[in-house]
């Protein structure tokens, strides 16, 4: 057909008129607009007067003061509380994100009883009365069978009232098994007890030190210390020097003035090497060493045998031999030792993440502080006494209780094998799995720690849990352990409850924080303190009488008595009367001095070891298998990833780089050199195999990690909580194996031999 002018015009005009009149394009445009911007679906947050309330964050053990912004009854924002002595206004991402837990889908909304198989996720809601009765009946039954020692409890702290209530309950009930969840505090606390004779925690006066020698402490990488460290770090004198000993360029190492990568596990050896130089060059504080310490020189014991002193021990740690063990240049070791001893207020700190740590290593690093005479000094290492408000009030116990309490602990702590240790949660699977037909543990009360996620070798832990007939979780969230429990008695979220927070680990002044309810309980939950008191009230007379309080609030008020009002108002209290003891009275050891040779250290019967901290490179599982497992797997912690019991809320996962986690897969960091040797390149999918398990990972090349290592963040790979949290990455703890330090029993399994091959 020929298109003439007339035809063309009629087509164009006809088309234009037609298009204008037909509703189709307009309807479509409208639909597109509606589809693309569904406005009525977006929430409109209710407005109202806003106010700010102070409390203390309990997401981790850091004890930071926070300010919660509220609109009417809603908590909408968390900010750092200015003027709080610990964090001085700073706050970490975990603290800010805690609102996602308060209102999030992983809360346990009421007491729940398992109906399906364990871990199947089938639950029945029950009333609080029934829940309390259920636990009490089970406990009564066990007690009637004269087996009260087959009950154990895990809690995050033995220095606050909730931990105290549990321990008191177990004492009245007749079980020795109060197990504090593991942390790096364990080795430090034990070393402090052995060398100084004090039942105290270690405080590092970082704020006032001018040379901080950190043996792999994740100062700025772990939420546990971040709040305090950030403010301390930004206030540090320009001239102050932070030295980080760590095989990986962590955020702390990146901020340090000197990053010294030592072969992992040899930190204790390095400490003794530095001590060697300090002693040889006579750079130590001779007043302290001569007058306030013992065991420095060789001596004679009661039987007339020669006892090797610390000085003689150091002969084996010459810079040349330490250089070989640690991989650090000899000259660097000597310079570091001289700089440390020559500084005005030097401070050596220890506390490896993930594990409890080696006592020898802690003793060696504490000894460095003793050598430079900074014990209980400004900018030094300070012994922080236990809270003064917690004390055992008179309690009558029946025979069952006394007998049960004297039974050996289920985790072996305090027994002949591990005489000095206090809490060994990681040994639970081993003890339970190796027991005969009769389960050694009948009831497990989990009031902290999420052990099914954090105990190394998750599979073994699960097997052990299968052999515990009755598991009760007090978690406010549906975590891995709660999911595997028989009964959940959900606690309030920390923004809904009172709870005293003990001095944060490493903080150099005794400070008590008080978390207080900022919002009303969102669900049918109960304070764990109230749950314990209610359970006790259901028990026999003696136990009932050991808990004379109406409820937890009443108990708390009585405990703090005249301090309560100001504590509730200020949310923290610093012990004003506290000054670190003078060297004259600082030490409560048998010699009343700082003991380089810890005489009260009890060694296991078959040990050939001397009591001196003769550090060796730490044992690594799979060590004999260097052909099959040529690499070394080390988990690392990051302040953007919640590393322990509580998982990353979505906000935190959002902050994590796509070279750490991407589309559900976790990346391991390896040096490009290691990648070349193993024929791997950036982004490759690979299988990481350790001595205990394997995992599918992806590869990220990073120059800042020592060749031969494979590093993975701890805290990913949760399987519980909610869809927003689970199924992202792999659980680093499941790739580890617990290693009980032969001398103390503490878990030192910080790494494992591994292989990495392309998937």
């Amino acid at each position, binding site marked *: 057909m020929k298109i003439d002018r007339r035809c063309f015009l009629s087509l164009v005009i006809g088309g234009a008129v037609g298009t204008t009149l037909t509703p189709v394009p307009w309807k479509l445009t409208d639909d597109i607009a509606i589809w693309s911007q569904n406005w009525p679906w977006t929430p409109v947050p209710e407005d109202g007067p806003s106010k700010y309330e102070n409390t203390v964050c309990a997401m981790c053990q850091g004890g930071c003061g926070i300010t919660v912004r509220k609109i009417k009854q809603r908590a909408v924002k968390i900010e750092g509380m200015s003027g709080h002595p610990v964090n001085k206004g700073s706050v970490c991402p975990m603290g800010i994100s805690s609102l996602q837990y308060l209102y999030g889908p992983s809360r346990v909304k009421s007491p729940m009883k398992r109906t399906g198989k364990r871990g199947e996720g089938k639950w029945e809601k029950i009333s609080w009365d029934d829940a309390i009765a259920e636990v009490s009946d089970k406990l009564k039954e066990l007690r009637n069978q004269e087996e009260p020692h087959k009950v154990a409890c895990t809690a995050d702290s033995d220095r606050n009232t909730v931990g105290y209530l549990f321990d008191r309950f177990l004492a009245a009930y007749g079980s020795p098994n109060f197990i504090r969840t593991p942390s790096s505090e364990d080795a430090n606390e034990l070393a402090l007890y052995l060398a100084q004779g004090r039942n105290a925690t270690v405080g590092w006066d970082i704020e006032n030190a001018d040379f901080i020698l950190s043996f792999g402490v994740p100062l700025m990488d772990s939420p546990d210390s971040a709040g305090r460290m950030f403010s301390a770090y930004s206030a540090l004198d320009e001239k102050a020097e932070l030295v980080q000993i760590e095989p990986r*360029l962590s955020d702390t190492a990146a901020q340090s003035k000197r990053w010294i990568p030592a072969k992992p596990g040899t930190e204790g050896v390095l400490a003794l090497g530095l001590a060697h130089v300090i002693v040889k060059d006579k750079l130590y504080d001779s007043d302290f060493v001569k007058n306030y310490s013992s065991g420095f020189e060789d001596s004679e014991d009661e039987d007339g045998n020669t006892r090797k002193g610390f000085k003689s021990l150091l002969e084996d740690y010459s810079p040349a031999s330490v250089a070989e063990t640690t991989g650090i240049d000899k000259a660097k070791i000597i310079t570091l030792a001289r700089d440390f001893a020559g500084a005005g207020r030097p401070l050596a700190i220890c506390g490896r993440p993930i594990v409890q740590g080696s006592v020898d290593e802690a003793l060696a690093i504490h000894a460095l502080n003793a050598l430079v005479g900074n014990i209980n000094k400004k900018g030094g290492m300070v012994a922080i006494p236990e809270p003064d408000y917690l004390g055992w009030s008179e309690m009558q116990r029946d025979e069952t209780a006394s007998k049960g309490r004297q039974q050996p602990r289920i985790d072996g702590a305090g027994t002949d094998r591990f005489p000095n240790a206090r809490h060994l949660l990681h040994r639970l699977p081993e003890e339970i799995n190796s027991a005969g037909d009769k389960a050694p543990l009948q009831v497990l009360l989990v009031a902290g720690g999420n052990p099914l996620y954090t105990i190394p070798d998750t599979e073994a832990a699960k097997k052990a849990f299968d052999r515990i007939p009755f598991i009760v979780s007090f978690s406010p969230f549906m975590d891995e352990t709660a999911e595997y429990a028989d009964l959940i008695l959900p606690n309030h979220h920390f923004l809904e409850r009172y709870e005293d927070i003990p001095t944060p680990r490493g903080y150099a002044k005794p400070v008590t924080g008080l978390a207080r309810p900022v919002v009303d309980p969102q669900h049918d939950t109960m304070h764990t303190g109230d749950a314990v008191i209610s359970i006790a009230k259901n028990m026999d007379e003696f136990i009932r009488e050991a808990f004379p309080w109406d409820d937890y609030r009443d108990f708390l008020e009585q405990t703090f008595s005249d301090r309560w009002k100001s504590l509730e108002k200020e949310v923290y209290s610093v012990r004003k009367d506290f000054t670190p003891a003078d060297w004259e009275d600082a030490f409560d050891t048998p010699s009343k001095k700082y003991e380089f040779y810890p005489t009260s250290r009890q060694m296991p019967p078959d040990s050939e070891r001397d009591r001196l901290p003769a550090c060796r490179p730490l044992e690594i599982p799979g060590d004999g298998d260097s052909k099959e497992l040529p690499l070394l797997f080390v988990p690392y912690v990051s302040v953007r990833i919640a590393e322990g019991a509580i998982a990353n809320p979505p906000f935190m996962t959002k902050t994590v780089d796509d070279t750490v986690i991407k589309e559900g897969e976790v990346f391991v960091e390896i040096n490009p050199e290691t990648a070349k040797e193993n024929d791997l390149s950036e982004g490759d999918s690979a299988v990481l195999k350790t001595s205990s398990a394997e995992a599918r990972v992806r590869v990220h090349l990073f120059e800042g990690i020592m060749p031969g290592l494979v590093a993975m963040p701890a805290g990913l790979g949760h399987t519980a909580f909610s869809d*927003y949290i689970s199924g992202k990455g792999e659980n680093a703890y499941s790739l580890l194996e617990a290693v009980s330090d032969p001398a103390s029993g503490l878990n030192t399994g910080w790494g494992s031999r591994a292989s990495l091959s392309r998937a």
Partner: protein
Amino acid sequence: MAKKAQHTATKRYGMVIDLDKCTGCGACMVACYSENNVPFREDESDKMLSLNWIQVFKVDNQKPFPDTEVCYIPKPCMQCDGDHVGHPPCVSVCPAVATDYDQPTGIVSQISPRCFGCRYCMAACPYHARQFNWWDPVWPAEMKQYLNPDVSVRMRGVIEKCSFCYHRYQKARNKAYMEGRDEIPEDEYQTACAEACPVNAITFGDLLNDEHEVHKLSKGKNAFRLLERLNTNPKVYYTTTKDWVRRITDNYLENETPGDVEKARKAQKASH
């Protein structure tokens, strides 16, 4: 005499971020999500679809172990002034006036109800500061409870970006007005990220006001901006003493120094 209505002096709100101080903790990011109702998805490990108003990037000097160094670069919207003041790259291309340059403050706005999602601005922004809402935001369980009423929630199909917490400016301005003041003191208007930064690496204030810390810091010897030669004139400054960090923030030729670029830029401006 009755009090005369006054126009307050023009401000140029800006930021100076000390890269030597930043530890990469991410508190700024999370504070921003919380303050600005930034949505999240079920799988936040799916980084392609993750939305951020401020993001902290990790860079390293590429030197072999153990001479490696890392640096973190927090990157909010650069709040560009543009080649001629008031013409940032995104504002020039927006067909809906959904993003505009606020003359009194210098803040580049993003008005979601006006935006129809053409994403021209996203393409025009050289800093990837803008992101698109492909899906409706969802707050599961009771999570709507924590939403901040000062910032409206964005719907799907629109662009969103950092606003320098403009709602906080509005509040501070209203407060000053009610109290009969013209000036907003530095501490009355701070962004959520600057406030949250635990090591005080982020300083925020009026770049034109010599009483504000940022005024001095932005003129410091080590202060610079990202992709400076594009003449976008950002109001977000960075400082670092490390040369390798400085070089990473622009596409320098092998023998080119930041100084050369600055000189060339000034010469070009003069001849314009």
